[in-house]
């Protein structure tokens, strides 16, 4: 098997806050093969966005990053700023959550597309213009030529996210990180954007990381899913395996919290009670123990490691993994 495109080892991110050091990402290991899709799922504040920023080397200045981010044979953490800059867009691209704020309001769409092409692909202006029009057409924007002269505020939210995707795809990256790409959009647009990302990924044989709080988003689209809780990966498995038999009580609770069509109206949603632990005050035991209905004294005393039992590629961090029979119905 070829070496993975991305391997991150022992990645931790610490942020200084007035209340103490916040360990936003806590020793995460992940890897991703070229052309594959990894879904990272977790509730707000679980560290998934910080993890994506750590991979992209776009953490806030005050944040402390440790560990290794091996991408295409190079450790991005150690890479000189200029080498890192040359690698961006060509190899490593990103789509942010909110298309209302991720495009520059005072530059035309054409400028924002063409500057990336001209910076990395050494195209002259007419060539960059032609390529920009092709890109906008590829992401499903009608009348792309007229759009070039327009500003972001003249486009709808879904349109803007398509433009952001066109920018991300412009230099044919090997890896695209989509950080909650549909959270800020209308429900009707969400599926279109996800399908667009999946289609372009297959066409370009590009690896992709989709970050989301919605297990439903990764269900049919990711090859592998990593579930994060309180800065750690608590369960990781190929997608079909994860949905067939999840081991981690948190994953189960996350899935149970998705509203289902067949549920009778006015049935209370089985929300996860309690709140995630305060990341500035780490717990001694399993960080999900206070909210977990299977927790025992052992869970409060020691932290379970991310291990696998019967299946080598199904990892989970739990002393009391859920057995098949008790499965999803929770």
């Amino acid at each position, binding site marked *: 098997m070829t070496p993975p495109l991305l391997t991150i080892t022992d990645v931790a991110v610490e942020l200084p806050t007035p209340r103490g050091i916040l360990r936003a990402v806590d020793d995460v290991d992940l890897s991703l093969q070229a052309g594959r899709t990894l879904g990272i799922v977790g509730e707000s504040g679980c560290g998934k966005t910080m993890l994506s920023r750590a991979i992209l080397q*776009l953490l806030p200045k005050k944040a402390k990053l440790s560990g290794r981010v091996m991408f295409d044979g190079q450790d991005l953490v150690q890479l000189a700023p200029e080498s890192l800059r040359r690698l961006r867009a060509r190899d490593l691209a990103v789509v942010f959550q909110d298309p209302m704020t991720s495009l520059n309001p005072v*530059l035309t769409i054409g400028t924002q597309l063409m500057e990336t092409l001209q910076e990395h692909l050494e195209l002259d202006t007419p060539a960059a213009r032609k390529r920009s029009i092709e890109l906008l057409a590829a992401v499903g924007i009608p009348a792309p030529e007229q759009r070039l002269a327009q500003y972001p*505020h003249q486009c709808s939210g879904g349109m803007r996210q398509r433009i952001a995707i066109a920018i991300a795809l412009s230099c044919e990256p090997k890896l695209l990180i989509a950080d909650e790409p549909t959270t800020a959009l209308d429900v009707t647009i969400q599926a279109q954007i996800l399908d667009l990302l999946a289609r372009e990924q297959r066409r370009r044989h590009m690896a992709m990381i989709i970050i989301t709080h919605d297990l439903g988003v990764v269900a049919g689209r990711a090859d592998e899913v990593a579930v994060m809780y309180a800065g750690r990966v608590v369960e990781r498995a190929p997608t079909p395996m994860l949905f067939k038999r999840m081991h981690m009580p948190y994953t189960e609770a996350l899935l149970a919290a998705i509203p289902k069509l067949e549920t009778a109206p006015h049935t209370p949603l089985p929300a996860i009670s309690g709140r995630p632990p305060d990341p500035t005050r780490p717990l001694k035991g399993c960080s999900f123990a206070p909210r977990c209905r299977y927790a025992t004294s052992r869970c409060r005393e020691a932290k379970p490691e991310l291990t696998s039992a019967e299946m080598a590629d199904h990892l989970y961090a739990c002393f009391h993994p859920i057995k098949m029979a008790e499965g999803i119905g929770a």
Partner: protein
Amino acid sequence: MLNFVARRLLAILPVLLAVSLLTFLIASLLPGDLAMVILGDQATPENVAALRHDMGLDQPLWWRYLSWLGHVLQGDLGRSFRTGQTVLQAVGERIPVSLELMLMAEFIGLLIGVPLAIACAARAGGAFDRFMTGSAFAMLSMPSFLLAILLIYLFAVELHWLPATGYVPFTEEPLANLRFFVLPALTLALAEWPGIMRVLRSDMIATLQEDYIALAKAKGLKPSRILFVHALKPSSLTLVTVTGINIGRLLGGTLIVESIFALPGIGRLLVGAIYTRDLVILQGVVLLVACGFVIVNFIVDMLYAVLDPRIRHGHA
């Protein structure tokens, strides 16, 4: 865009009318009768009454305002009773001095303030940023007459590089003219740059936190392009406002600097008119300066639209 310009132009008219009314009232309601001032202490009441009648001062206030406004609209702002000069002549003589001083001062102020602001914002909280923020504060608290004297001492008395005081028109001796303007412009600029720097610095710091700056970095653009293209333009709205206000203020003359450096600018014309109770000159000059201010602000509004397309399209 044309629609936007037309709307702004229309909004100016009532402002100008209010300005003219205020200027007229200031001059008319000042204590002291113009006829008495002209005729002096020895005048008989009959002479004063006769002159008042000739000048229309016995008419009601609203009638005098309307007739003055009528003349102003035809380009006749009146004539000094002392020198016989018309207001336009007097201002025409002085405005090149004030304009040149203003342009040089703003140019130097921006030349110092803008790069410093960008450098500070790029490494906000760093040693350079803290040092410059402190220096700017120290500079702001220094009065201009003190700066002027220090500059004269250093560059004119000690180093003999530049003349201390004086003026020749640009059309006669361009180089000497510029040399005369360096020190007064520098004095004003040294008071201008701290404000320019602080405003732009804080706006830049806020802009650099934006998602679109993170995306610009993720696109692998050069740091200089991120700072100058992606961050500077959306950060410069307050800077443009502050510069507009500065320009307007400097247009109205800078009495202290003009006095110290013996420059015949608008400031000294105005104060002279006040001392000699030359009310025609006073109200004419105040009106012209106020109009200048309104025009500068109109240009500032236009610049907003150039800088931010959302304003141009009426979205913000």
